[in-house]
């Protein structure tokens, strides 16, 4: 069963709806005990980085990190992906999960912010998440902060400079865009995650 972690951030129902459509068994939960038993974990998110503080206050952070140590596949979406890093300029005192090194940064003033809309990806071969998704595919973004390019970057996008659209390392996955809102491409990506 896939646990979709509910920490009061926006688009939970959209994410659940997309997995339901794919026929996946999911549960929306804020119960650390359920997270500790999940076969896969999804951390969605829209909104402010500081909303992830609720994960710390509810014991969800510890439950997620323990389960991740047990090699359970984890997918962070938007703020959920940003949380996998050390921190974000959006809320400098709020700690990320530190699964990856780096800090989320604001878009430069040369472009309109937030970055909203469909942008194209340059994806790497060999990614499990992007199986069957051609490089150059379009996905839907809506965010004001971004993860720089890292060694774990498997898809890049460009808006006021290049940034990480997706990261992947072993059983850890993160996407800055919204697969649940990215039409067929997004559904293929979620299907790939379900089939891991």
């Amino acid at each position: 069963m896939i646990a979709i972690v509910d920490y009061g951030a926006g688009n939970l129902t959209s994410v659940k709806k997309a997995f339901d459509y794919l026929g996946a068994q999911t549960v929306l939960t804020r119960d650390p005990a359920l997270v500790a038993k999940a076969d896969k974990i999804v951390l969605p998110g829209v909104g402010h980085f500081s909303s992830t503080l609720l994960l710390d206050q509810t014991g969800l952070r510890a439950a997620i990190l323990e389960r991740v140590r047990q090699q359970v596949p984890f997918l962070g979406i938007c703020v959920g992906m940003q949380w996998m890093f050390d921190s974000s300029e959006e809320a400098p005192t709020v700690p990320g999960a530190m699964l990856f090194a780096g800090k989320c940064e604001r878009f430069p003033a040369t472009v309109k912010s937030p970055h909203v809309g469909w942008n194209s990806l340059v994806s790497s071969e060999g990614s499990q998440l992007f199986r069957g998704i051609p490089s150059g595919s379009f996905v839907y973004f809506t965010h004001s902060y971004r993860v720089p390019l890292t060694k774990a970057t498997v898809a890049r996008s460009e808006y006021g400079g290049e940034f990480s659209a997706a990261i992947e390392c072993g059983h850890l996955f993160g996407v800055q865009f919204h697969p649940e809102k990215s039409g067929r491409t997004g559904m293929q990506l979620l299907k790939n995650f379900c089939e891991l």
Partner: protein
Amino acid sequence: MLTKRIIACLDVAAGRVVKGVQFQQLRDAGDPAELAAAHSEAGADEVVLLDVTATHENRSTLIDTVRRTARQLFIPFTVGGGIRSLEEAAAVFDAGADKISINSAALADPSLITRIAERYGSQAVILAIDAKRVSAQARFQAYVSGGRKPTGRDAVAWAREATKRGAGEILLTSMDRDGTGAGFDCELTRAVSEAVSIPVIASGGGGDARTFVEVFDRGRADAALAASIFHFGLRHIADLKRELHDGGIPVRWPC
């Protein structure tokens, strides 16, 4: 590259899609859930559902329509029309909307923008402005109540204030062009787009591909919304996107 969005708008009344000309003469155009799915399939980048009656009695019908439409729609989905409070916005989000669009209620109480943005994020709050030219000059006034009441507010100044208050996008409708197919008001669109740091969706007057090229180039629009040209088979979104792509406008094509 970030693409220009083509947004299909479904005006709904009592659970059915309708379309009028210059905010009048409503005609039936089909089932919202079916039409939304059809638009997505044809290549629409987003779907907006606007409750044009927006009466209190129709609220539960609207929520049901939103839920039905959202169930099988996997592109961004905005709902607007008659949202007056944080609670009404919450009901629409719970039913599956990704963004809400507010107009009259925000003009009456601009703090509503901030309150919804604080709870759901700015990306979820679209401020809709219905603007009309003041005589023939390049000055535009905001109207409310489905275009029936002038507010005395300058549309550009209002867009700027709404941005400061936390709106994530501006949906800018030219009442002079709405439903005419005669082309977007590029002057209006450009004035607002250059005044704010958030994306501007141009609406009202979309017709052939040339009108879209103009509003993206000359009007500096980030997205363009159209309803009547898509509903009655006058034009297929896929054809429009191919023409825009061929015309050098970055669009999600093929999708």
